[in-house]
């Protein structure tokens, strides 16, 4: 069984030069901002502000470069719990996003419909069929939006992911299935997860193209996603993209990677960190200089600071929020229970 090793010297060269300079610079900016925000979020967890956090360190290229290919006016992204950099790229209110990690509201405290980025979803594989429904709805209305479903290598084992891929294949729905294969599903490696060794290869069984990309190569990710979106938008149906990447951090702040993987592997992937890789490629292509990097870093730091301040002052949810959103049309019984809460519990 062949699963992905860190792409080494023999792998395809970065094609960053193939990206328009402006796109490459914007992707770099968002990747750097995501990296700094991710680092800040881990610090906030250490300080006790966040009960827990799930880092995406190492997956910035996969997330930002794919999300940057979306049309923010037309498309819709369905995330799991690790797509912070997708949210950032799509312009989601990040204080609202991180409200989930601050444990203020499970799904985050942003409007998923207006943001075109679904609520944070902790059911592995669960949101993938929603992308198919959303995309089908778009086509039924004669509109041109596409859905992108993010999921992990672990999620690829879920029946819902199979059902979603098959539905999309049968309906020809405009969906991009974007699997970030970060090699580990918590403690379980690809070898124990993926029969056959490739998630992308399964696409053939659903009658759609399956693309494997170096998920740490921003240009490759961006171009693959863009082609898949173009194809979907023009009526060509769904595509499955498997972006080979690596989770450099533990699964979550509660995880201990020493129990299941060795440092050597982490170090090897550290060498392929997508962020400096894109930086170098930008420089070599003549798209960036020292002044650019300084300016970008200043901007990213300022953005992170604003978000951190926002988190610090984010109000706790109102107690009545327990009841407010259960139904669109509340029941008398729930109103009774809310009165009970007011009388017996409300501080």
């Amino acid at each position, binding site marked *: 069984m062949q699963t992905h090793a860190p792409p080494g010297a023999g792998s395809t060269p970065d094609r960053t030069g193939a990206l328009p300079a402006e796109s490459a610079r914007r992707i770099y900016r968002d990747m750097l901002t995501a990296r700094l925000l991710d680092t800040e979020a881990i610090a906030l967890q250490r300080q006790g502000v966040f009960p827990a956090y799930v880092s995406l360190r190492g997956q910035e290229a996969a997330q930002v470069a794919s999300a940057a290919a979306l049309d923010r006016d037309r498309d*819709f992204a*369905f995330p799991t719990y690790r797509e912070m950099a997708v949210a950032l790229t799509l312009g989601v209110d990040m204080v609202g996003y991180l409200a989930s990690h601050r444990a203020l*509201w*499970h*799904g985050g*405290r942003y*409007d*998923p*419909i*207006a943001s075109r980025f*679904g*609520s944070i*979803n902790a*059911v592995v594989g*669960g*949101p*993938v*069929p*929603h*992308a*198919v*429904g*959303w*995309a*089908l*709805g*778009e086509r*039924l*209305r004669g509109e041109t939006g596409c*859905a992108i479903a993010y999921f992990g290598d672990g999620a690829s084992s879920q*029946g*819902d992911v199979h*059902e*979603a891929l*098959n*539905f999309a294949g*049968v309906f020809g729905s405009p969906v991009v299935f974007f699997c970030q294969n970060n090699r580990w599903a918590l403690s379980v490696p690809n070898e124990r997860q993926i029969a056959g060794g490739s998630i992308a290869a399964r696409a053939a069984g659903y009658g759609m193209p399956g693309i494997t990309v170096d998920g740490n190569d921003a240009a490759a990710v961006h171009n693959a996603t863009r082609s898949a979106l173009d194809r979907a938008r023009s009526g060509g149906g769904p595509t499955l993209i498997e972006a080979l990447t690596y989770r450099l951090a533990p699964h979550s702040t509660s995880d201990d990677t020493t129990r299941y993987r060795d440092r050597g592997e982490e170090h090897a992937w550290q060498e392929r960190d997508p962020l400096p890789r894109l930086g170098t490629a930008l420089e070599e292509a003549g798209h960036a200089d020292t002044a650019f990097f300084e300016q970008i870093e200043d901007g990213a730091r300022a953005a992170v600071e604003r978000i951190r301040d926002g988190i610090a002052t984010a109000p706790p949810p109102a107690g009545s*929020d327990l009841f*407010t*959103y*259960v*139904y*669109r*049309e509340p*029941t*008398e*019984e*729930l109103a009774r229970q809310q009165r009970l809460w007011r009388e017996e519990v409300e501080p």
Partner: protein
Amino acid sequence: MTEALVGEGRGANGAALVEMTMQQAINRALDTALREDPATLVFGEDVGRLGGVFRVTDGLQAAYGQNRVFDTPLAESGIVGLAVGLAMNGWRPIPELQFDGFAYPAVDQIVNQMARMHYRSRGAASMPITVRLPSFGGIQAPEHHGESLEALFAHVPGLKVVAPSDPNDAYRLLLQSIRSDDPVIYMEPKARYWDRRQVVLDGARAQAADTGGDPIGASRIARPGRHATLVAWGAMVHRCLRVAELAAEDGVDLEVLDLRWLKPIDTDGLAASVSRTRRAVVVHEAPLTAGLGAEVSSLITERVFCDLAAPVQRVTGFDVPYPAGPLEPQYLPTIDRILLAVQRTLEF
């Protein structure tokens, strides 16, 4: 479909009184919904060309086209997941799960996704989904085709659950469910699909609230009586009506309360009936332990304890898997068992 128009222009708003089976009434409600609201979609396994295994969706694809009424691959979780995504994109899905026992593969999408997406998104994503679920037993069906899942779904925050007992309610309650902006599990009593009765078809009503008076959650007195209240839903309502007829021959006057909504439960309606009759027997097909009868019994006890002349009785299925044909009549609450429970409550 053959329908006998037994009266014209009767009822408000030009509503017509038409005799039809429950299966036809559900078909008519779907037809009305598809006609009045272009955002409605009907889909599921075999609902298109075939018209559903019970022919409930017969003719709808021909009338509304393959975009509005369509077959999906055979995967229940995918069907409900599809509905969730469609709802997030502004549609009003009416998925069918072919049989009760095959709702289990969709439980994750129903419970973890559909039921709480509105909550998770703080009201941004509403889920106006009606999951049609042919339910309950009584037709000597194969395994997994006679299950009663109401207690499971009634337990889930964010869901509403309803089970009609006759064609008129089937029509009315389905339109009410579809027009509601919350997710509803609509349980169709298979054993009553061919029951033929009069249905008040509403004319051009479009307002969600305007579905014939009763709000979501309202029960119905199927037969007024003085000596005890039989509480039931779905096909058991008719069994209780039969029990009431038999009891009447012995001078016992039973009230039959058709609960209709299993979430929210009409606590006021229950309390009003039982405080008058002072005795209650709850009848359901589902197994006893942690069945909805326990909830009904508790609600009665909490609300009208001092009016009760006897403990609330439960007549239910046994705590066994739903059995095959020959044992079905011994599993489902029999007329004799209900009469015995009535006797126990009267003699207490």
